[in-house]
């Protein structure tokens, strides 16, 4: 997965699937994610995301999806 510049990725968290283990929050290199008052993960600074894919690969509950902001045909 090629690294992308900031502000081009969309991070989606499914709160129903998140168990709040905090793995994504503590290892995120750009500090995009945070735990909210309910103890679950939410996206705090989406524009800082560098699309490294760590959270997506390491979420044990498959609760995070990182995608490109624009559809593929628009980028080209």
């Amino acid at each position, binding site marked *: *997965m090629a690294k992308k510049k900031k502000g081009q990725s969309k991070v989606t968290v499914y709160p*129903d*699937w*998140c*168990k*709040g*283990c*905090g*793995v994504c929050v*503590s*290892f995120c290199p750009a500090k995009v994610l945070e735990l909210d008052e309910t103890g679950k993960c939410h996206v705090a600074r989406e524009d800082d995301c560098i699309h490294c*894919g760590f959270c*997506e*690969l*390491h*979420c*044990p*509950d*498959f*609760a*995070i*999806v*990182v*995608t490109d902001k624009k559809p*593929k045909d628009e980028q080209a």
Partner: protein
Amino acid sequence: MNEVTGNEIIHQYLRHNKKFPHVLCAGCGHGIVLGSLIRSVHSLDIPKDDVVIVAGIGCSGRLAVYVDFNTIHTTHGRALTFATGIKMSNPKLKVICIMGDGDALSIGGNHLIHAARRNIGVTALILNNNIYGMTGGQSSPATPSGSTSMTAPFGQLEESFDTVSLGQGAGANYVARGTVFHVQKLERLMCEAITKPGFNMLEVLTPCHTQYGRKNKFKGPVDMYKWLKKTAVPVERYQEMKEEQRGDRIPIGVFTDKGNPGLEERYFGLKKELLAKQQAAEGK
């Protein structure tokens, strides 16, 4: 191949009529192993119907419930025996056996060494979380010496099994070790373990915070992942290290790769040969 990436692939392979989120505890590495397995099967372009997941009992046994492959949830420790039967009756299937450390090394230890000796074409994933998690945190054969558990409150006196040496000694065709922190490496190893012939063994170190970490001074699941990041080193670098540098470090990577044909290949080859001989004798 489909254009979707990451977790979107995983959602295509899950059984959404099961209750989600899954039963595993927060921060359990088993979910990551399941994700890597799905991504590996997807990247190898194997149809869902050609994959059989055989799981034993324990936390790892739950993984078979959630994926939309052919799955079978078997008795404790006997997953490899069921897998052997499936592979011998239909060698076209990719049989993947998911076992925990207690399942594979203690209760099914006998089956593990004999499956390795036979070189049956099964992929054995051994999810090593150092403890019997589901039954309440008893010491397993993989609990490191000196660590505390429910049945060893003053520290484990027994030595633990080295799964890799065990597999090598028993004659497994392919032996590798990965961790859930190094996911991309784990996926590469898993792809190799699924495609190579013969008995392929992949040990995956996955943290169990609920039963093991809490009793061993890990504050949270994140600490266990940090520990994995610190202790796991590639096997090439581990071999170059001096004895005193090694300490508690755990080598990860490929340890044995023989590439011998599996038992089912040799069996059906022999069958074909004998039938040809018989036909030739009858023709005379």
